[in-house]
């Protein structure tokens, strides 16, 4: 089992230990948080020094975000320490796959559809046992999806850890999977609920409104009456903390564990 560390800024390099054989760097949820060249260079220097490969993680993107990300990658495309790109937007994959053909392309967890609602955590398993494989599943379980990914040279998919268990069968397939823990993402939006949360003006945010990067300062606990578990709102994304990593992962085709020491925002 390969272990990777996922961080969103260079300060979190303090979490690095020798157990990790790879570093993930970037943001999955907001194009305003695409890392700067300065931060990326810092990561590259660290990875060079530690002799470990670097995976660049990208968010879902608009045309503007694609342009910005493209200009960053143009400067780094020949860098050998960056050997992998996690894409969370099919458009971004479509544009850069050929330009950056020397990198491995990994389908990110934002594009992986799983039943992650906490409703399942507080429901007795026997009540949905007959449809459990569906609630544990993901499209990559299907041969049709595996064939599509293999045809497009996407040989790894990323998944979130699920409290109801994971149903995945990658036997006989070229595709491998990685599993994120302990933070699973539940929902995300471009109308950031945290943006301007200290501001007095009460207008509903529009897509175009600016923010003051409140995601870097504030974390919200989101609870629902009757539920023992809660969600965490950080920036524009809802997460849940789940630290029980299943044991039989490799049998299912999951060959990498991605550890997030902090909420990846």
């Amino acid at each position, binding site marked *: 089992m390969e272990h990777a560390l996922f961080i969103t800024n260079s300060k979190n390099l303090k979490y690095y230990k020798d157990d990790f054989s790879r570093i993930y760097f970037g943001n999955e949820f907001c194009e305003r948080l695409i890392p700067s060249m300065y931060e990326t260079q810092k990561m590259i220097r660290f990875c060079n020094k530690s002799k470990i490969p670097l995976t660049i993680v990208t968010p879902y993107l608009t045309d503007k975000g694609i342009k910005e990300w493209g200009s960053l990658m143009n400067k780094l495309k020949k860098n050998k320490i960056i050997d992998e790109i996690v894409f969370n937007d099919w*458009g971004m994959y479509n544009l850069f796959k050929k330009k950056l053909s020397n990198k491995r392309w990994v389908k990110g967890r934002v594009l992986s559809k799983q*039943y992650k609602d906490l409703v399942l955590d507080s429901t007795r398993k026997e009540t949905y046992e007959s449809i459990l494989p569906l609630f544990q599943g993901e499209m990559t379980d299907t041969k049709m999806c595996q064939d599509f990914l293999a045809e497009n040279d996407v040989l790894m998919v990323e998944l979130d850890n699920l409290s109801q268990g994971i149903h995945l069968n990658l036997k006989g397939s070229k595709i491998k999977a990685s599993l994120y823990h302990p933070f699973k993402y539940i929902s995300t*939006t471009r109308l950031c609920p945290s943006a301007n949360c*200290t501001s007095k003006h009460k207008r509903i945010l529009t897509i175009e409104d600016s923010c003051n990067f409140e995601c870097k300062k504030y974390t919200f606990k989101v609870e629902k009456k009757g539920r023992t578990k809660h969600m965490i709102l950080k920036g524009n994304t809802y997460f849940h903390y789940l630290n029980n990593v299943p044991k039989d992962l490799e049998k299912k085709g999951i060959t990498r564990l991605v550890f997030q020491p902090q909420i990846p925002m």
Partner: protein
Amino acid sequence: MKIVAPVGNLKEVEKLLNAGADELYTGMLIMKGNKLNDVNYFTSARRGKSCSLNSINELKKANKIAKEKKAKIYITLNSFVYIEKQFPKLKKLVYDILGTEVNGFIVNCPSMVKFLKDIDKKIDIKISSMATCLNSECVKLYKKMGASQIVLPRHLSYEETKNIIKNNKDTKFEMMVSNGRCRNLNGLCHLCHATAPKNTIIKKITGKKIMMKLFSLREGNYGLAHKKLSSYFENKNIMHLLNADSGSCRANFQVDFKPKDKNTKVIRKNIDNFYMPNRFRECGLCSLYYFKKMGVNLLKIVGRSFKTNLKIDNVKMLKESLNLLNQKITKEEYFNQVKKIIKRTTGLRCSIFNCYYPEIFYNSNPRI
């Protein structure tokens, strides 16, 4: 621009077409009734008797009515997750649907496009808003795979939408304009609208059909269902189970916060209000003025499981607004007239709380 309306049952087909709809979309059930404990029940994102046609015979009848009115019908195959076990029946369903000569399918990911194109390359495919096409390149990818139409997600600004359409001139674009506006990106949101376990539990506990009726309210409207259940049950254990088991979409959440910097006070504590801004009928009629300039082809009404009257109202409002656009009318005149249409049809005043595109609401003159 053409009007695309949702169909929840066969009876609605004629009514919606008579009201002015040009195209319809609906789901298809593989089995009879709401068998929530079977994976084959999950054929599309919104499933169940209240938002799908129940048999191929019904689809044939619907298609016949539509063809008489020169309208189109699309079938949704956009379930959040499909697993291998579902595909034999899903494949049969597709063949059966193709036999009825409907116009095409609505799917939400590249692998489903491949699935359909492997069956028949001529199948017309529309990409659901759940595919979250936020950029021009994503549209190009789907177009390359054989899709002919794209439903753009709600979360795009005026400029972003305009650029996507400009960069993909040979593609048809559909924009959502009525109902179902959500704060979250629906293609990337994993909150349950309704869950099978909940209904199963209720059935197990009560054994009464009446309880199922409470849940025949539109999917996701659990707040109201809870209120009704609270008055029905006195047993707290059961209430706890029901509370714990409800879907999270549009539920009321309590929000707490821990700022790193203790000197800073967070003013907006009620994130739940922002989580669900759409307590009223959401409407984007004024945006039609800009959509016409952008080159949007289709206008989508959301809500297959919504009441028929609401859908008919929506179709009529859109039709009237489109007629206004076809006249020589200034932007200000159009906005004023549209506000009157909304007030007359829904009884609601045009407000930010029921606005589909707040950007247009705030900026009466976006950068064109």
